[in-house]
């Protein structure tokens, strides 16, 4: 659906915008997770077929002509994986932040530039 596709792209870009402008480490990760959500919405939008339902054979969907009635199951499967991976990455990022804070008592990304050039 085009409206959800636009929404997904908008969230993706807002997420990037946050990563590029926010100084707070946690906000940067929030930006990352917003971008992630946007990506997932984009993926599901691409798998949607107009007027069709979930790819689960039950009372609503007949096993015989299921092919004509369901949306694409592959993007769903991909997004499932992507969501879990997103969580994993976010968790590791946050534990980095916790440790960084422990060492440096700062959440500003500007305070972590001792390595350069």
């Amino acid at each position, binding site marked *: 659906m085009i409206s959800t596709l636009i929404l997904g792209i908008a969230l*993706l870009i807002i997420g*990037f915008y946050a*990563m*590029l402008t926010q*100084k707070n*480490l946690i906000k*940067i990760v929030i930006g*990352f997770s917003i*971008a*992630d959500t946007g*990506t997932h919405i*984009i*993926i599901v939008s*691409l798998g949607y077929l107009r007027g069709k339902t979930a790819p689960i054979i039950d009372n609503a969907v007949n096993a015989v002509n299921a092919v004509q009635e369901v949306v694409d199951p*592959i*993007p769903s499967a*991909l997004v499932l*994986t*992507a969501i879990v*991976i997103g969580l*994993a*990455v976010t968790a*590791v*990022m946050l534990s*980095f*932040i916790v*440790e*960084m804070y422990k*060492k*440096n008592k700062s959440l500003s*990304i*500007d305070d*972590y*530039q*001792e*390595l*350069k*050039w």
Partner: protein
Amino acid sequence: MVSPIYILIMSLAVGFLLSIIDRAGRKISLTAFYGVLTFNVVLMANWLYRFVFLHVPTLVINTAGFKAPISINLELGLMEAFVLFFANLSGLLAAVYLFKKFKETQVSSLILYLLLIMGANGLVMTQDLFNMFVFLEILSISTFALTVLKKSRETLSAGFKYMIAGGVASTFFLLGVVFVYYFTGSLNLGNLSAGSFTNVGLVSVFLLSIAVFIELKPFPANGWALDVYQSVDSGIVSIIAVVNSAAIGFVFYKIMPLLPSEFLTVFGIAGIVTFLFSNMMGLKQDNAKRLLGYSSIGQMGLLLAALIFTANVQPSVRYLVIGGLFLNHLISKAGLFWLAGIVKQDKIKDWGILRSRKPLLVLFGLFIFALSGLPPFAGFWAKWEFVKVLVDAKMFFVLTSVLVGSLFELIFLFRWFTSVVKNTDETNEQLASPGKSKATPVIVFGLMAVISSFGIMRFFYEFNWIQVLPIFAVLAISLIDSLPSKVKGFLSLAAVAGYGYYIYPLLENNLQMFFGVIFIIGSAINIIATLNRKNQSRGFYGFLLMMIFSFGNLLIASTYLEFFLAWEFMTISSFLLILRGQKAQRASLLYLIFSTAGAYLIMVGFSFAPALSSSGGALINVIELVNLPLVSIIVLAIGFMIKSGSAGVHIWLPEAHAEAESDVSPFISAILLKAGVFGLLMLGISYISFTPSFDVFYWIGWVGVITALIGAFMASFQEDAKKLLAYSSMSQVGYVVAALAMITHLGWVSALYLAFNHMMFKSALFIAIAGVYYRTRTRKMYEMGGLIAKMPLSYITVLMSIIAVSGVPPLSGFGAKWLIYTAFITKGWYLQAGVLFFASGVSFLYLYRLIHTIFLGQLKYEHQDIKEAPVWFIIPQYIFMAGIMAISMFPNLIIKPLNVIAMKYFDSSIQIDGLTVISELGHWNGNLVMYVTMAVFAIPFILLLVLKGKTQKVKQFNIVYAAERPESPQTTHVAHNMYAHFRKALGKWTLPRVQLFWDSVAEWSHTLGGFFRRVYTGNGQTYILHIVVYIVVMYVVMGVK
């Protein structure tokens, strides 16, 4: 055969269980851990063997009981097996390296490490795009977590930057994957091709490829990677630089078929830009690991470019280029990172401590040489073939960038190497023993570097064993290096004799024979002087033999590559010999930089050259039939003239001669410079029959003339005896170059005559000065004087030599001058002849200075007790003197064969009648000249004896004490700044303009490097911005619709 999917299975099963196993004791979990890593290596080794030797077809592994594209499939072919074998091997060795850490830290690090390696395996084998994403995440997350194996502020912030960058890249990768699916309905690489994407569909492959590309750290979107390289534990960094890069690079290789060619070209250029800029920025770097980081990033850029630009060449060449670059990077980078962990010094200048562990020092040198692309290591072959590919495809921008970038890399690597070997201001700290677990991987990779070199030579080329003899010489001598140096010296002498005996039948052409005499016999006589060495001189004879053998190999090389190989061996060995000098750090580096630049030009020149038609023996013989294109001749000529020290590119020469050990200098001056002459002569031979539109050799002739003049002037203003001789060599070789540039019979006869003459008298002079230095411990001429009384034998050598140099009768130099001026006049190069004549006048200045300030005048107080030079110095001097006398008395001994040599290419222009040489313009009878001159000298001498009055010894009138005592009395001596008045008269002309020019080139590249690296602000957010901007810019450049 065990399916490679068991790599994934074993790693996962053990990885999942490891935390339980660990409860039973770390020993057991470590056993399981190393067991799996070893299993991976063995399995891949087996598959690699099967692909290479049994030619089994590519293995396809389907999962879930369905065929692709229904299910995900894995593929293992030759390329995969090759990459994975080395990736797993590096993984195992890095784990061995980290053994102590793994023994102590939490079991988590083992799990992370194991799954990291598994991720790399999966990434390489999988054929499904989304599955790639999953494996990429496995690889990334485990790497992120492992960056804090050594937890500190630096590693944490570097790891965080890494995560953010990786997160951005993988977001784009995921988007690319699903867009690909949306447009094509498939995720399997087997079903996709570049044709699957049109118009808007191109966005999908753009996102996919740019994400992978970002992961490969392109300039300037790679600041995060540098921070990781700098801060993270060496063992883990080696994995990031080697295993991660290899796996992700392989992903790029796999998705390349999906990309339209415009994309690929842009990526290729971006790779080259990365290579060029990271190496340029490396110039300013003084942190060892960050420097290695710059180098890693550059190497990956080069590898990518090679991957893209070799897409259309034949597979064997492609394998060699990519495989060579890959192996070279993998082995030497991992090795160096491990060494960094052993040395534990951040700053490059503190690495001198490595000298306290000789084996590690050798390994360090090995990796540095390999990384710089010097033979025989893998990178050398790859670079050679790659340059050829680029020349054939006319990609000159890429070619230039590759060569300039390589030169930058060589500069910073060897600045490091020379400072490690030579840096004097260190404490006497001892490097702590690295322990078995840390040393083993480094040693294994050191061996791998050697083995892979020979593997490449064995599989891709058919070399005569003699071509690699220089290497074996080093190895052989290193085995007996504990013997006293005299024994090694005699053995070397015998080896050179044996070598000469072996190649003698191969020298079919008189020209080869002539240079054979200079290279082999000249070297052999010079070896005698080295017998004076008292200390053990470890390594010296190995490199000396390597150099002498490569001189000889130049003569018998039958292909461009063999010639170039010998040339490079010669450069390496001479560099290492120069480096032995006490204060030779700067000099040797300068020498290597200029030589390498020259070598690159030669490489390019040969790449332009048409293929050799016949396999008819040595290059020097078949080159006659080769029509070298103009660009090839120009480039080759510049390359050869760098080695012969022509004006403009000569600044390495005085320093190298002066700072080398005094028994090495004669080799460099008298013999090494002739290699450049030999190269130019080879060009000349090709030039005779196919004269191109532009008269290159006319200009080469001028360069020779100017070199002769500048060299003579510079020599006159030196205080250092060896520098004086060095500039004199430059000047003399200038004559040779000018003469051979005439491309006439007489020109060549005189050039060869002069070359031979120079070999003898310059060897003698350098050895004589070596003797003087040995006794006086100074090279400053104004600190000597009056040594005639103490060292009469050396005095006679110097006297005879300078007569031979200056070209006054009766010695051989006279003949040379007579020939050369005749040649110039018959050629019609009057102006050049005039300038040379002037240069000869100037050369009297420095020759007089040499003999006067050292041997004549007042003996210095501190030299009261010195003796004649040691006998080992005197013997070779007098052998050379005998030679000079012989050809002075009987010039036809040499003129006759030279006449024959030149007659192969030209009609003879001289006649030889008994003892007389007759040219168009006159005749010369050396024998007669000798008698006449002797008579002319004898008469006044006898008169003097007969009429001798009372000889009076003049006391020194010591002006110094007339007023006050100057701080350094020697500087008031006439010998100090002897020709100040000439210098004044010349005014600005004596400014070392060439030196200043090269200094500013160096400064500029450093400033540029310093400027560009400012993009790496250290701020993680800026790095994200770099990545996003990079993506946008690439999007615009590629013109995706």
